[in-house]
C-alpha cells in the first residue's frame, strides 16, 4: 500500500548534528521489551549506506535522542532497520510509534565489524541478549559473500527462550549447511529442548579453527570478558577478537565527551574495537 509523499522540502544533507526525517514503515514487537522499527526517508531526506556495526542517533520529537545500532542488511540501506529495547523515556516513546509516524535520524556513526579483513578466515559471531541486533548486519554481509569466508559460526545466548531475538531467522540460518548456529538460554521454559547454560561454554565446544578465526562479540560487558577469555583458552589471539562497546552518547561526533572509555570516544573510535587494544581498560572498574 504505497503512500505518495508530499513534495520534498530542502533538507541539508551535510550537517551530522541535525536529524533528518524518516517515517516508520513497520513496527513489530520482538520480545517483551524489544521491538523493531523499519524506517524510510521522507521529505527530501536521503538514505545513507552503512557498514555493519555502525549506529544512528534516533530522535523522537519532543522526547529525546538515543544511539541505536543499525540491525538491517547493509546491502539494502534503503530499508533502515533498528531493533530497540525499551529501557528509558525515549525508547519507551519509540515503542509506541506506529506506521506513518516520523522519527529523526542522524548518522551512520562509528567504526564497523571488520568483515573485509575476515576474508579467508573462520568467522565466529557471539551475541548475548539484544547484542544479536548489531551482529546481524555482519552475518547478512558474510552470508551474501559466503564463498569468501571459512567456517561461519553463530553463538547466541538469551535470558529465556521467550527473550530470543529473531527466532525465525535463527532457525533459517541453522537449517543452512554452511552455517553452524548454537543457541543457549540462562533459564529454560517447559517447552525448551535446547541448551541451557552460558555462551562461554558454547565457545569451548564450537567447531572452528582457533588459530585462524576472527570473532565478533556483542553483549553485556561481563559476557564479552568471559567469551574473550574462552576464545583465548581455545587459542584465538586477542587481536582477532572484536567487540562492540556501549557508552552514554549525546553528540555522536566526538565533541561532547560523554562516551569516553579510557582514551577512546566510543562514538568515533568505536563502537567496534579490537579487543587487545582495549583489554587494559576493559577489566578496570568505573572507567
Amino acid at each position, binding site marked *: 500500500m504505497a503512500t505518495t509523499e*508530499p513534495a520534498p*522540502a530542502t*533538507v*541539508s544533507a551535510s*550537517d*551530522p*548534528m*541535525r*536529524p*533528518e*526525517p524518516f*517515517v516508520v514503515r513497520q513496527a513489530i514487537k520482538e520480545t517483551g521489551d524489544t521491538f523493531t522499527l523499519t524506517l524510510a526517508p*521522507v*521529505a527530501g531526506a536521503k538514505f545513507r549506506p552503512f557498514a555493519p556495526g555502525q549506529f544512528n542517533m534516533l530522535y523522537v*520529537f*519532543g*522526547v*529525546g*535522542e538515543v544511539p541505536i545500532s543499525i540491525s538491517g542488511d547493509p546491502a539494502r540501506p534503503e530499508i533502515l532497520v533498528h531493533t530497540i*529495547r525499551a*529501557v*528509558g523515556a525515549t525508547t519507551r516513546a519509540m515503542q509506541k510509534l506506529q506506521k506513518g*509516524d*516520523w522519527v*529523526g535520524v542522524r548518522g551512520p556513526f562509528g567504526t564497523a565489524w571488520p568483515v573485509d579483513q575476515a576474508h579467508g578466515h573462520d568467522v565466529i559471531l557471539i551475541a548475548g541478549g539484544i547484542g544479536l541486533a548489531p551482529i546481524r548486519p555482519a552475518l547478512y554481509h558474510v552470508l551474501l559473500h559466503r564463498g569468501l569466508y571459512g567456517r561461519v559460526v553463530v553463538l547466541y545466548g538469551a535470558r529465556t527462550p521467550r527473550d530470543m531475538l529473531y527466532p525465525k531467522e535463527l532457525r533459517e540460518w541453522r537449517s543452512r549447511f554452511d552455517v553452524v548456529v548454537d543457541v543457549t538460554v540462562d533459564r529454560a521454559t517447559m517447552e525448551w529442548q535446547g541448551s541451557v547454560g552460558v555462551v562461554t561454554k558454547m565457545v569451548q565446544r564450537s567447531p572452528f579453527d582457533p588459530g585462524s578465526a576472527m570473532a565478533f562479540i556483542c553483549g553485556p560487558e561481563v559476557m564479552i570478558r568471559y567469551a574473550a577469555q574462552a576464545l583465548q583458552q581455545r587459542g584465538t589471539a586477542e587481536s582477532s577478537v572484536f567487540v562492540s562497546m*556501549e*557508552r*552514554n552518547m*549525546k*553528540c555522536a*561526533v*566526538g*565533541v*561532547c*565527551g*560523554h562516551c*569516553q572509555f*579510557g*582514551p577512546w*570516544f566510543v562514538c*568515533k573510535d568505536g563502537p567496534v574495537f579490537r579487543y587487545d587494544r582495549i583489554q587494559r581498560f576493559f577489566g*578496570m*572498574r*568505573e*572507567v
Partner: protein
Amino acid sequence: MTQPGDTLVVEARALDAVFGALRERGHTLLGPTVRDGAIVLAEIGGASDLPAGWTDEQDGGRYRLRRRDDGALFGYAVGPHAWKRWLHPPAVVRWRARRDARGFVAEPDTAPPPRHAFVGVRPCELAAILVQDRVFLGGPFVDPAYRSRRESAFLLAVSCGSPAGTCFCPSMGTGPKAGPGFDLALTEVIDGGRHDLVVEVGTERGAEVAEAVPHRPAESADLYAARAVLAAAEGNMGRSLDTEGLKDLLYRRYEDPRWDEVAKRCLACANCTMVCPTCFCATVEDETDLQGTATERRRIWDSCFSQEFSYVHGGSVRTSGGARYRQWITHKLATWHEQFGVSGCVGCGRCITWCPVGIDITAEARAVRQGEAQGSRP
C-alpha cells in the same frame, strides 16, 4: 608598513585608539573588568573599564583582589572566566523544529556569529584556545558554530607580568610569554616615567590594526624591558607541575588509592570543569514548548563530575567520586594526549583557585608520583 613579526611600542594611554580601531572593524570588545570582587571578562567600552591598578591573590580555594601601587592595566593573572564562554558558549541552539500534520523538520540556527575582539588573552588562555581548536576543528567533525566564532574573533593577547599563587604555565610550556596564535600580543612595561605596551604583531589583521594607531618601532631597550617583565614573571609562579612521564605515570596508576582519598574532599561541584579553559564536555538538551509543537535542540556545558554523565541504561559507569575525579585528571593530563596530541592542561591554575576545598591538580599529580615511588600498591 607594519608587518606580522614586527615589534612596536604603543603608549598605554593610546590603548583606546587600539580599541577604536577594533570597533571600526566591526568587533565588539570583550575584556577584563572588575565586577563583584573579581576580574571577570565582559563587554567593555574602553580602557577605562580595564582593572587598572588591581591585582589578584590566588591560592587553593581562595581569590581576592588587592590594590597595586601602580596603574598597571593588566597587572593581574586570570579570573574565573575563560574565553571558551564565547567560542564554545555555555548554551547554543543547534536547530529548531516545528511539528505539523505530517511530522517535523529540523532547521539549523542561522543567526550570524558575533564578531568579537578578545582583549587581554593570557598566554595560557591563548594556548587553551589552540587546544580547543584541536577538539572542534581538528577531528573528522568540524564544529561550524565554533569555527565561525573562532574565525571572526580578534585575539589581543597580553603576556603575564603578575602571575598568581596558583599559576604554573612554564611547567606546561604555555607562558608567561604569549605563544603563536595571536593577532597582537602586548607586554605591559611600567618603568620610572613610562607606561608602555610593547606590541608584537602576529597576523595581517593585527598589523592592520597596529598601523592605525600611534606607535613607534621597538628599540632594544624596549625589548629588554619586556623580556625583564617576563623573566620576573617566570620566576614568580606559585605552583609547578612535573610533566616528565606524567601521561604514562597516570596510565599506570588508574587503581591508585589516592583517587579515593581525593574523593573524600571533592564535592563534585564541577567548578573546575566550568572554569577550566580547555574543558569542552557538553550535553544535548531538547526543549519543547508546552503545546508540544516547537522544539529547540541546545548544546549545553556539562561536566564529567555529574552522576548522569556516564549513564548507560541501568546505571552510571562512574558512580564513585574517586572514579569521577580520576576521569577528570586522567583526561586532562593523560588521555588528552592520545586524543588531541597535546596536554589538556595549560597551567592557568583556575581549577585550584575555584575549587571550594582547594584540591590542587599539581599536588594530586605529585602525590601519585610519590605514591608509586614509595611502592604503594595500586
